[in-house]
């Protein structure tokens, strides 16, 4: 009996300590991220490392490469001048928002859709890419559209909104959430699920190196990607939006689209070009 009391005491005191620590997370809003970045001439971006065409680690030199990486570099230069540096921190769909809120990174450019849910906790720049959610299946799969997934198993990634979206279209689908896209794709191939769902552009990147798998059906949602920014940073947000407009106006944006998506089967890059 005495021991039980002891354990209850431990657990309650723990609860107290942790709830106190969880409340201390307010200091960030008092800082001006744009001013800090101007001083250090660096913007720290949260980027993906497992998403082909957008942000993928290259085993040859360990560098992150992709459309989002190039776009982040271009935006950084427009914001802070030619000699400014873009610093990259690898994030996953699960870790990106906590890292932004904690201030490990200044902004997220990591295949993140602007959604009402996320807008409650963070801000977004204007959209920088128009993706749409789609599914990838084996070539001979009986699944023709997302609704066919009812009573089947579908693989997604923890923290992506695709796993929540798919339940709207196929409420009876069983959803498995894996830590990142590399695991999700490998799990699909191992037969852990009948389809993999995420944005068409990510799937198109996966299909390049994986014969026998294809994107199935049209995109069933629109997924405008935005750069994630902390709330209470209007100057930073304005600077990002201004830089994004300039990058589009001077043709850099379209050049990058053609560089990364110009030659991807199953993905029409002309639809995402911007004037």
């Amino acid at each position, binding site marked *: 009996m005495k021991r039980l009391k002891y354990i209850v005491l431990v657990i309650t005191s723990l609860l107290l300590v942790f709830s106190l620590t969880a409340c*201390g997370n307010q200091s960030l809003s008092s800082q001006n991220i744009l001013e800090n970045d101007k001083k250090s001439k660096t913007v720290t971006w949260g980027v993906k*490392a497992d998403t082909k065409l957008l942000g993928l680690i290259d085993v040859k030199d360990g560098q992150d490469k992709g459309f989002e990486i190039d776009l982040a570099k271009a935006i950084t230069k427009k914001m802070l001048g030619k000699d400014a540096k873009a610093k990259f921190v690898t994030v996953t769909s699960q870790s990106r928002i906590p890292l932004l809120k904690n201030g490990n990174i200044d902004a997220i450019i990591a295949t993140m859709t602007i959604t009402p849910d996320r807008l409650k906790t963070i801000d977004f720049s204007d959209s920088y890419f128009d993706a749409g959610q789609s599914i990838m299946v084996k070539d001979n799969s009986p699944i023709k559209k997302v609704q066919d997934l009812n009573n089947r198993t579908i693989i997604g990634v923890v923290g992506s909104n695709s796993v929540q979206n798919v339940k709207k279209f196929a409420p009876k689908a069983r959803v498995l959430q894996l830590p990142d896209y*590399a*695991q999700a794709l490998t799990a699909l191939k191992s037969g852990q699920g009948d389809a993999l769902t995420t944005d068409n552009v990510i799937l198109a990147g996966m299909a390049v*190196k994986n014969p026998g798998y294809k994107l199935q059906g049209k995109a069933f949602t629109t997924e405008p990607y935005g750069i994630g920014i902390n709330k209470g940073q209007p100057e930073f947000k304005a600077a990002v939006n201004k830089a994004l407009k300039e990058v589009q106006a001077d043709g850099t944006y379209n050049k990058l689209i053609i560089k990364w998506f110009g030659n991807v089967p199953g993905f029409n890059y002309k639809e995402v070009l911007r004037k």
Partner: protein
Amino acid sequence: MQNWIDAYSWINIRFLLQGLWITILISVISVILSFIIGSVLGIIRYAKIPYLSRIIGFIIDVIRNLPLLLIIFFVYFGLPAFGFKPDTIPAAILAMTVFESMMIAEIIRSGINAVDIGQMEASRAMGMNLAQAMWHIVLPQAYKKMIPALVSQFISLIKDTSLATIIVVPELMQHGQVVYGQDPNYIIPVFVAMAIMYFVVCYALSLLSKFIDRRMA
């Protein structure tokens, strides 16, 4: 068909070895730090200082009984609330150190307990104070007894660094995932290579421990 030849291209192997290097780096730094911190905490807990030993005992027991994965999340996602924002590698080192310190503290405490109480009393009777008796008489014997347990804890630590892949620390497991993410036909070769790399490091350590144990006995 699994493509062993391309999977084992120098570029891929080098990338895996870079991961192994980070794994070893994280493990070695964490084991040194947690040996020091763990020893201090273990001795405090053993010494039964009023309140302090109890409180530290609480903390040790709680952290010891949580999954390491949670400690990694707390350090990486929770610490920045206190104004400290570690990158992934320092975060991994910190998380491993916090966790391993508690494990080592327990090993140290039971190691000290295993040294005959009579020895402590005898040294005190000879006029040594508690710290002197600890330092000259009890600890040297306790550490000798603890070597196997400490080494196997170190081996656990090396294996546990693989969990840090969840926050994208560029260690061996993470690099393995990147390599087999490139091509579906690399998966078995990569698993074999990763298993061999972990095995060689950990097994070598356990052989070393057996060797030291025999020399000391």
